[in-house]
């Protein structure tokens, strides 16, 4: 894991900053649930784009990789949206 982190330091720094920002925005939006849902969707979209760009840069992009990031992003976003219902 550390090897992977060191290999793509910048990509992971961007990911962590994005996720921390998402966490702050989501919790900060309370009690406005509509805004929280928008933040959840933004986190999912950010993650999908991050995945595509990271794999594109390393020439390791395939349809299934994109689909995997889409699946993971959708699941993460949906869990956050459902908890606000």
């Amino acid at each position: 894991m550390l090897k992977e982190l060191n290999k793509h330091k910048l990509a992971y720094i961007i990911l962590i900053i994005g996720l921390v920002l998402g966490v702050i925005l989501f919790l900060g939006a309370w009690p406005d649930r509509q805004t929280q849902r928008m933040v959840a969707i933004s986190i999912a979209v950010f993650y999908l784009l991050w995945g595509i760009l990271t794999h594109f840069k390393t020439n390791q992009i395939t349809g299934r990789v994109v689909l995997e990031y889409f699946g993971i992003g959708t699941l993460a976003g949906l869990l956050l949206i459902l908890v606000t219902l």
Partner: protein
Amino acid sequence: MRKLSDIVAHIFHPRRSNNHRPRLLHPEALFFVVLIASGFVALLHLFSGLTSANGSILGYASTITPKQVIEATNQERAQLGLKPLQLNQSLTQAALAKGQNMFTDQYWSHTAPDGVEPWYFIQQAGYQYRVAGENLARDFANTPNMVAAWMASPTHRANIVNSKYEEIGIAVIDGSLEGYETTLVVQMFGTQAGVGAKPVLGDADEAKVVQASGDAVKRSQASILASLLVPGGQVESPPLFTPLQLTKAFFLAVIILIVSTLIYDTFIIGNRDSIRIVGKNLAHIFLFIAVMYLIIFFRGGVVG
């Protein structure tokens, strides 16, 4: 038995049968998990009316009392140097009538399905107002969280710290709303009109909070369990779980399962000399840790 262990290995262990990636981490399986999570929430809503011998299974129990709400409201006003609001029985009656009306007609909004606005209840209670306002809350477990939610919402905060208001009425009512046992809190603000003065509806409209949630209105068997002010903690059999607790528990279990599989997969593949083009496990783990944190610290309660 061998077949079962084979299925488990296929789902969680990277091997030839799953293209060297646990089946659970394949996009198709992830979408299946999405369906399961959605189905769980749908079922939770469907069976929200389930009861046991001891009372409701699902619902929200609270310790909110009218006295606490008034004290907390006045504390917020005091911090801004505003005069404390005085409890007015007519406004309390109006708040109670509004709360009962929401349970009877099964809606969650400032305006009733038949178009009746909060000012109707205030006038019916015999309170001639110059200015008036209303804050609503539901599903909160305690007063500090509820008042914090109101203060975090600009429109509700504007009501609480409005210098035009002199009096307050509070109703804390337990009942069944949209399938769940819950506690509704209605906070009515007002200032009485002087003798001979006519109510100014415009001011009232300004003061009204319009951030009602757009939940579907259900006109069905309304059941008012308590029509009087029932201090929290005195309800005989509070629900066993809140829907939020069950949802959180289920979602956290799903996340822990996926994160464990990701960690296991990273460990197994790290010890093999194989190349595969898949998503980054570490990134997935980071994302799910963030989601787990948000689910754990998500605070319930709805203001309107």
